[in-house]
């Protein structure tokens, strides 16, 4: 049996974390390859539905990352996002969607090493949690159980 390789989607803002991840690369810092990065203008634009869709399509973990407080390119996008994350996280927790599978972080354009650390630690967390089979079972309902 091959070892479980977590599939992780990262939603990052264009101005800080994306640039930070770029710096990780140009600094030749090696980090886990399990992450697929999707770039957004701002964390304020990252709709919670995108996170749900990621799980629905088979992601085992998610990273959401943007500019540090007070550093938002649009002044307040990350402040709004933070409030939404607080509410969303509480709701997911009530529903039993494992909040440990979503890592939120602030990574600036200068924090290449922090990005590598976030990715590595998230991959480790998800590796310990294992594949998200509970969600997959619900998402794959139609293929498996329809017409019963």
């Amino acid at each position: 049996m091959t070892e479980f390789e977590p599939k992780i989607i990262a939603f990052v803002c264009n101005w800080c974390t994306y640039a930070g991840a770029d710096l990780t690369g140009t600094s030749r810092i090696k980090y886990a390859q399990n992450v697929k990065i999707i770039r957004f203008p701002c964390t304020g634009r990252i709709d919670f539905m995108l996170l749900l869709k990621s799980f629905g399509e088979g992601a085992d973990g998610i990273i959401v990352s943007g500019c540090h407080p007070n550093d938002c390119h649009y002044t307040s996008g990350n402040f709004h996002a933070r409030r939404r994350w607080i509410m969303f996280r509480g709701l997911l927790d009530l529903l039993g969607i494992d909040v440990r599978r979503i890592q939120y972080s602030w990574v600036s354009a200068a924090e290449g090493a922090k990005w590598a650390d976030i990715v590595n630690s998230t991959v480790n967390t998800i590796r310990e949690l294992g594949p998200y089979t509970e969600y997959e079972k619900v998402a794959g309902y139609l293929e498996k159980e329809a017409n019963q």
Partner: protein
Amino acid sequence: MIELINKAKALLESNAVQVVIGYGKGTSNRTRAIFVTQSDDCDKLIFDSRCVQNLAVYLTKSEIKKLGKPAIVAPIPVLRSILELAVENQLTENDIVVLGITPESEIVDFDTFANIEAFLATHKIVIEEKYHEIIRLIKAMPVAERFAYWVKELEPCFKCYACRAACPLCYCTRCTVDDNQPQWISVPSHPLGNLEWHIMRAMHLAGRCTDCEACFNACPMGIPIHLLTKSMLQDVNDNFGSYGPSLEKQNTLSSYKPDDKESFIR
């Protein structure tokens, strides 16, 4: 209720309003929303403990708007909804006449939304202890069990959208579930689609919900969807201070503080 009837009559006769949205006798032991346009019909207005439907939902419906300026019979849950609609710029003071009803069944006129807010300050939303208890019990379950619990609870949902239709704050003319480019939520009812729909519904009400329970009352299948919004209401309280609509401040998710606290962002 003679006072209510007389007030309604006077409003219609003076043409101050063209319709009174109130409660009337329904089938069996039920009550229902009625729309009185003739002063002679005002006798049909009633109010008692069975009148739980949130009438504020009709304030934004096009079919009702066509009837003209309304007066609305407003017990506390309706007042809260009116205030929230005002906060969200869906109503102005000129749009409606509010016939408030206190828990002691007294009729109170509200000339301004500020008066409604002042009145509601003494009638704050209280989440009943029994709900706190249920939410505590659910949260105490191991995460996988909790997930299984909700998947099973939401299973009977056949997406009739009665919860959405009955909610005074679901006034969007085109809901996200009706959008298909992209298709955020599956149209058919199945476990994933149901889960996504109820998360979306709760999230879109986060910091706006006034805990009127119209969604739960409307659900034909008796799904406890109000637990989601109640829990979120508590989250608003715990993270951002008080909950409930206020003309002074914006909705929770329309605003922020630079020093909002959280413990999970790295």
